[in-house]
């Protein structure tokens, strides 16, 4: 077993044994620890509240030296997530130039949760969402809530 697999197995056991509030994890395919299915509850008080968002966590073969990738399988109206079928998410700690091999998947998951509660418009990938978030918060919130009701129920 490669060293990356050993570490991932350890981290999986850790997350399964003590899952963070509002996050459920299971493997896409039982024989492969590199792809994780994640279901994340929309944080309370955010326009995503009440929604259940499916995410895919992909751990590269040279994990932890290369960062994991997280994408939203459920459409979400959010400045830091592309509003398309890819649902690519941009988050600071997962950027190659900021990734630390010592970071744990658990902290990546909670960071994602925090990003839902508090978008970072300056680091946006979905610029129109970021614009609305910055200039017309009520409109952004209304749209985000609508999309949540539409896609994330």
């Amino acid at each position, binding site marked *: *077993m490669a*060293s990356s697999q*050993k*570490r991932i197995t*350890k*981290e999986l056991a850790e997350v399964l044994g003590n899952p963070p509030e509002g996050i459920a994890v299971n493997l896409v395919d039982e024989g492969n620890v590199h792809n994780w299915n994640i279901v994340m509850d929309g944080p309370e008080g955010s326009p995503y509240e009440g929604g259940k968002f499916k995410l895919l966590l992909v751990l590269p073969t*040279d994990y*932890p*030296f*290369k960062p994991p990738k997280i994408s939203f399988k459920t459409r979400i109206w959010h400045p830091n997530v592309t509003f398309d079928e890819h649902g690519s998410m941009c988050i600071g700690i997962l950027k190659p130039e*900021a990734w*630390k*091999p*010592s970071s*744990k998947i658990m902290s990546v998951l909670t960071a994602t949760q925090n990003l839902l509660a508090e978008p970072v418009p300056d680091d946006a990938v979905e610029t129109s969402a970021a614009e609305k978030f910055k200039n017309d918060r009520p409109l952004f919130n209304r749209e985000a809530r609508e999309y949540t009701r539409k896609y994330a129920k």
Partner: protein
Amino acid sequence: MDTPSQPDSLLSRGSHLSDPSQAYTFHTDLDNLSGGTTETALGASISSIHKISTLNLRHTVDLRAITYGGTVDENLVCPICRCPFVDPVLTDCDHVFCRACIDDALSHGELCPVDRLPLSQATIARAPKMVFNQLDALKAKCPCCGNIFARAILENHLEKYCLEAMVRCPGSLSEQGCTQVVKRRLSTQQCLHYPAQCPDCYETLEQIEMESHRQTLCRDRTKLCDYCEVEILRCEEIEHKAECPDVLQICKWAQYGCQHESKRRDLYLHADDCHFKSIGPMAEMLKVEISSLRDDVRNLTETNQLQERRIKFLESGQRASDRPMDLMDLSLASMPEAASTDSLDSGHDYLLSLLETQQSRLSHLSAELSDFQGKNTMMLFNETLPIKNELAELRSTQQVTCMHVRWLMRFRMQENQRRFGVSPGLASTGGPDGGNGFGSDITLSRRLSDSSRDVITKL
């Protein structure tokens, strides 16, 4: 010892381990003997020779795959592999990693995996000894037997002691030169790598597999118990029968005559109905009693024999002492005579009688001694008594004399006063009254009587 058997020669050779060249020849020697097995084709290091001289194999443990007992201190966990450090190194940014992990990390980029500070092999040093010590003390579970050991001794445990770890088959040391490995648990017998038939399914397999085959693999390994009809392993039938609840068992008072027999589970029902339920315990008690009485009897017989011997001796002593004999003459020399006159058959009896003579002599002597002591005390008392009396007499005489003298003195002084009246010479004895010494007769006379009394008391 011209032609020692093979294991013997191996052992004796094994004792020359200190000489590397000899160790090397020993090594090739064994290669030939055991048919050039791959295990023996290790380097000629001391450890490998030790391994060959016994049946031990070298075990390398993957310290990242084993289970650790309890919770491991987070400070001892590598941030890269998330396991307790293996061969830890310290960076100059004060982070510790496994040697292998940091090598891996540096191959992806020369940055510290924790703080992304620049890092290179040159700035990495072995971690402090303390870290190693803490790691060595970690509780690790043996991957074979599951027992917990300090991590540092785990490999040694597997290599030399673990009953579930693999060792070379004992057949490797004998003529057959078996090249297989077996669990240490099974290595105490000879080679078990021979075909045998499973008594359950009649399949032929290696004897070494038999135990696990009969327990887990055999298709005919189970049967229904003849009595309780519970499914049991055939190889454990005997053990089961010993506790099967449906096996017929006899009453526990059977030896006293109870004919009852019932299933083990029902035997308790009989306990109340058994005709022997009151006799049984009694009989048991009596049995104990009888055996203790027997012991008593045996003890008494022994004492009796002793007493008899003593009597015999005393009788013989009596006969000997009929002749005129002083205490001092009852010497050792007289004893053989006594022994010969009487039938003191064995040497033991003789010694015993000898001892008894000595004892009686001793008691006689001590009686004499105390008698003498008593006499002595008496004599001393008799002699001191008259002296005491005399002393008391002298004391009383002296008192009488004292009284006489006092009376005489007083009488003399009164005489003197009457004869001379006031005497200035006598009055001058008074210190402060000296100036008006002639004042009165009464004072003077009192003073005189005072001083004379002083003189008398001094007497």
